[in-house]
């Protein structure tokens, strides 16, 4: 009861000085608003990176037939022809912590169906590929180890290829021609969309690796091998061991460079994610600094207010207000001010986010818990910066207060 009266009085006191109150709140409004906008931008960035992360694969370690400096001449990427299916099997056998392996060949092809044709990539893989890349088959099924052993002329289409060759038609069971070889379509992959670098990840045809080697490349060597580590923590150790096994199998001397490239894209993206988070944190703390400045503004105005209202404080003390009553009154004014500022700030943050989204087309991701945190933070600012002026008011001598002109 008493508290509600105190709060009502606080609101009335603020309304009596509405311009001043509004200007004081502006600091909090801008602090909270910019905090919400900044975190929204940061969150959007992080979730974009996280999305990429989930698209990359299952603790992927990627070994690519690579450049190799020999007598000063560097052969470009994929220049060597030393990567073999046996390498994949050897790593799987010898390196603990490797869960899956998929030997791959790839290249450009023209896929033909009826009178339609579509230039795309092919990728010869083992059945584990789908698991390693976390790629679901949307229609039909993937191929099996049996298909790999038999060099079966079957293929699974990426969404883009399926769309361009078949349109609305059901591609399952149909036959397409690749390099004059008829392939039976047994499945269509789930759509993954564009990669971080802007490539259409769905524009390719998947087939058994042996089929690709025998019927398309006509060569024994591989372009790359995908490995899947058992856990993320093991990636660095597994990577080191894979290098060891590969060098041994390729008879490289200590002085010679690797004839392959090994990459762990997940690590890279995780680093990106960490960078994005640090960025958000940095901007966020800059924004909360402005919230702090807003709090100092409140303290400043409250101190002025206490001085101006010395006589009022004297009257209130004379008619029976205790120190606690006076302290509560001024503290609640500061808190009400910062809470209203905080609420308006949340509003400003939401509006600002929409504005940035619609005018600059920035990705914004608002999160309710950040708004709650911002609100809570502004209340804390009110208590923290309102305490000293309220204390000062409460400790006033009533006789001095009554005498004050």
């Amino acid at each position: 009861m008493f508290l509600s009266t105190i709060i009502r009085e606080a609101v009335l006191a603020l309304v009596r000085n509405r311009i001043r109150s509004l200007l004081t709140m502006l600091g909090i409004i801008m602090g909270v608003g910019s905090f919400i906008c900044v975190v929204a931008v940061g969150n959007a960035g992080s979730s974009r990176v996280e999305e990429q992360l989930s698209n990359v694969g299952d603790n992927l370690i990627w070994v690519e037939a690579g450049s190799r400096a020999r007598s000063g001449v560097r052969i470009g990427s994929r220049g060597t022809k030393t990567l073999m299916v046996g390498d994949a099997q050897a790593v799987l056998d010898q390196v603990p912590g490797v869960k899956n392996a998929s030997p791959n060949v790839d290249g450009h092809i023209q896929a033909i169906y009826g009178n339609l044709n579509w230039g795309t990539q092919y990728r010869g893989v083992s059945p584990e590929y789908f698991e390693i890349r976390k790629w679901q088959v949307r229609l039909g099924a993937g191929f099996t180890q049996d298909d790999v052993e038999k060099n079966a002329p079957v293929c699974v289409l990426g969404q883009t290829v399926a769309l361009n060759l078949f349109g609305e038609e059901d591609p399952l069971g149909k036959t397409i021609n690749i390099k004059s070889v008829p392939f039976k379509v047994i499945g269509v992959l789930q759509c993954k969309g564009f990669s971080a670098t802007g490539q259409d990840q769905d524009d390719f045809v998947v087939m058994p690796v042996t089929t690709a080697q025998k019927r398309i490349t006509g060569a024994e060597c591989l372009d790359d091998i995908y490995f899947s580590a058992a856990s993320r923590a093991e990636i660095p150790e597994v990577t080191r061991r894979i290098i060891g096994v590969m060098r041994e199998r390729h008879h490289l001397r200590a002085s010679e460079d690797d004839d392959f490239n090994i990459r762990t894209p997940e690590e890279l993206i995780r680093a990106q994610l960490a960078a994005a988070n640090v960025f958000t944190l940095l901007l966020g703390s800059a924004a909360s600094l402005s919230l702090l400045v807003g709090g100092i503004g409140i303290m400043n105005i409250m101190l002025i207010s206490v001085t101006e209202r010395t006589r009022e404080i004297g009257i209130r003390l004379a008619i029976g207000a205790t120190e606690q009553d006076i302290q509560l009154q001024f503290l609640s004014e500061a808190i009400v001010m910062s809470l209203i500022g905080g609420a308006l700030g949340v509003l400003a943050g939401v509006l600002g986010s929409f504005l940035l989204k619609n005018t600059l087309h920035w990705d914004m991701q608002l999160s309710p818990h950040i708004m709650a945190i911002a609100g809570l933070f502004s209340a804390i600012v009110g208590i923290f910066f309102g305490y000293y002026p309220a204390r000062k008011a409460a400790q006033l001598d009533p006789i001095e207060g009554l005498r004050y002109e």
Partner: protein
Amino acid sequence: MGPQINPLTVAEVAGQESSRDEIVIQVNDLHKVYDLGETQVHALRGVSLAIRRGEFVSIMGASGSGKSTFMNILGCLDKPTSGQYLLEGADVSGLEKKQLAGIRNRKIGFVFQGFNLLARTTALENTELPTLYSRIDKAERHRRAVEALTMVGLGDRINHFPSQLSGGQQQRVAIARALVNRPSILLADEPTGNLDSRTSVEVMEIVQSLNDKGLTIVLVTHEHDIAQFTKRSIVFRDGKIRRDEAIFNRANAADVLKTMPVLED
């Protein structure tokens, strides 16, 4: 036009049914020394006094005589350096700040020279203010404040702001505020100091009528005319009581008012 006073509610507000002889204020050998570092100022040098229920005491004295200090101590706004102050038999000279605030709230009503109303706050809200600090529920607070304002003849102005009221009306709001918690004593510090002579008498008419209903009143003034409306005159000089005597042929404010010309502007 003089103020319309509602005679029905005053007795209830004064509220004491106990014996008229009961001592409300008893001070024994009060001393107050202000320590200003290099010098010490003796504001009170041994004041002893008893005021019974229903008395109407005026305190006079030049500035520096110690009367303000004495009033501050009576009002529990200040503590004596030494000596004893019994308010309704209870020693209040050694109480904590919080307890003193409670006594100011419930037992003492203040009226000041400068009215000391809160600006931009209605007459009603000003009057309600003491009840806020005694944690009375909203409906009762409102009822008491309206009652007190009606009693001082401002029942029709409860929603006016101080800036919309004349000096006399503002002082009446201040009196209503002083009465709203039904105090044991009313302390008035030069209540007519800022008012013209007719308004002064009007205010004194209210104060007299409150005393007639049994309220104990201590009034500080430096005007002899105003002191003539009280029943007992105490004169301070150099921190001591120099004179303490009953007033005979007490002036009646209502009668005086009839003899005064009404100034129309």
